[in-house]
């Protein structure tokens, strides 16, 4: 199956390691992706929907024009915004037509409502399948304790992000962590907000969320946290030193992107997955990987 690929702004900006690791891992798995380049930012929940809905309808129309019916994201926030907008476009045909007429027609575009938007995590679990992933595992990450951090956008609103029939989405990260031989660590904030959306508005609250989540994962014995969202990654990783300072504590919890974790199990080394780019040292991961290789 071929997917249109929407990397999102952050994987092209402050988290370039997410972009490169996603491309390498999808290539390794033989998942065919074609980047859709002439499209805009989703609005990330910041832009008013009056602005972001037409931009997102345009992106989906571009995917249809490519002759594709699936768009793969690697960012939970992009995924959440797309899913919510697409839900409106599919369920409110009059609204979709209004956007087509007022905004897209001028460019000769029309969104017909045929595109499914799927996060890389969903693509792996729902289209590719765990059985097909198994042969790609070159080294089991035995002993590595990984706390999944879904964040909020890929989980809610539940009625459209994890509807009946797809309730398994709530444990996909844990399923993958187990599949690659690592040990999932349950933390209380795994599906809560990371605090990124309010970083500018209320830094104190945002940093409190970071220290709560990373501190909880540390207390539960995790070696690292894994997230499918680069915005969660930015807040939990790049801002962790700021959060530590505000909470007057030391946490040092490495945060890795989902494709990086899988890449390590598929045989890529840490440099290929660009773990050295992270702000919080990923040394605990390297140490545990050495132990698992020796044993």
């Amino acid at each position, binding site marked *: 199956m071929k997917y249109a690929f929407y990397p999102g*702004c952050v994987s092209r900006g402050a988290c370039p390691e997410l972009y490169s690791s996603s491309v390498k891992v999808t290539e390794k798995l033989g998942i065919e992706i074609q980047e859709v380049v002439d499209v805009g930012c989703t609005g990330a*929940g910041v832009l008013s929907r009056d602005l972001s809905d037409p931009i997102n309808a345009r992106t989906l129309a571009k995917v249809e024009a490519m002759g594709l019916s699936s768009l793969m994201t690697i960012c939970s926030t992009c995924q959440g915004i797309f899913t919510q907008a697409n839900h409106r476009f599919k369920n409110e045909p009059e609204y979709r037509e209004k956007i087509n007429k007022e905004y897209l027609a001028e460019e000769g575009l029309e969104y017909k409502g045929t595109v499914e938007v799927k996060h890389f995590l969903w693509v792996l679990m729902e289209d590719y399948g765990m059985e097909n992933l198994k042969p790609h595992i070159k080294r089991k990450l035995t002993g590595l304790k990984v706390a999944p951090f879904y964040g909020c956008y890929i989980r809610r609103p539940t009625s459209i992000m994890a509807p009946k029939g797809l309730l398994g989405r709530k444990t996909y990260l844990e399923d993958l962590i187990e599949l690659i031989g690592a040990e999932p660590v349950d933390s209380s904030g795994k599906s809560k907000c990371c605090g990124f959306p309010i970083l500018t*508005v209320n830094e104190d609250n945002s940093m409190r969320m970071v220290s709560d989540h990373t501190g909880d994962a540390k207390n539960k014995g995790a070696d690292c946290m894994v997230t499918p969202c680069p915005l969660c990654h930015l807040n939990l990783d790049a801002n962790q030193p700021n959060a530590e300072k505000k909470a007057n504590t030391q946490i040092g919890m490495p945060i890795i992107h989902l494709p990086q974790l899988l890449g390590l199990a598929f045989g890529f080394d840490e440099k290929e997955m660009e773990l050295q*780019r992270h*702000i919080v040292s990923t040394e605990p991961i390297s140490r545990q990987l050495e132990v698992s290789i020796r044993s």
Partner: protein
Amino acid sequence: METTFKVYRFDPENGRKPDFATYTVDLPDSATVMDGLRHIRDELDPSLAFRASCDRGSCGDCALRINKKGKLGCTLQIAKTVKDGVVKVEPIRNIPVLKDLVYDMETFLWQKIKSVKPWITPREPEPDGEYIVAEEKLLEVRKAMSCVMCGLCDEGCVVIKIDKKFVGPAALTKAYRAVFDPRDGEHEHNERLTLVSEPGGVWDCTHCFEANGHCPLGLEPTTRLFEVRDEAIRRGIRSGTKNPKVQRHYDSFVNSVKRSGWLDEGRLAIESEGLTNIAGLAKLLPTVLRALPKGKAPLPYLHPKRPGTQAIRRIIEKAQRREV
């Protein structure tokens, strides 16, 4: 059905720490959690205090944490919630407890609801007769009208958990009810939208949609909150009077997407602080210095344009012209 109730007990007058008391009740399968609590109070322990009123899910008084989930006790059957023969009942979270299951709604909810001015001030001039409002204009407003102010959305709010000053989804749902009522006066409309855009208002919400999952009536408080925020933006209100940084952040985001099709993260950080705000910009430095050697600090204003930028700019400009 025989069930063990583990009930939170706290009496500020006895000086003891809060704990759980255990009661065994045997009630028909159709019994609700409130039936269980009433049975305990009437037959086993008259000292148990709890809030209850309508017994039909329309007053919101019996909002409780039952087996770790926020629920209305009067509409939840014991059989539907019992786990290993146990029903654990606690006050809702994030609220001062007065005694046992009785909590203080004043600071938790009532003051916050009052703060958004949840009433309509009719448009002038008043009509001779009654105000005639088209049914379709009130359909969504009616949903918000049916909020019973149980506070369960606030109970599940991740921001209120750490910041009691956040006005919260319940009060903002009440704001929605007034904001989208077509009878609301123009001046009051804008005044209310400015009010909810102040610090602690709509912009302090993380958009995590927790509240939607916690509302027992399915009123989708997070969705309402988004609509209030979008209505404020439509009217040119992109922050309150005391948080201009929010407006700078919003405007920079829009301008970045207009200029290059996507987000210039560096520019957003700088412009949100304000180009002349030396202290604010200096605060960004440690984060930038950590990110630079790792190649994680995109250079601001040198952001390459995406193909299709012109079409995206046209869309934004057209949408902005439609704002009031």
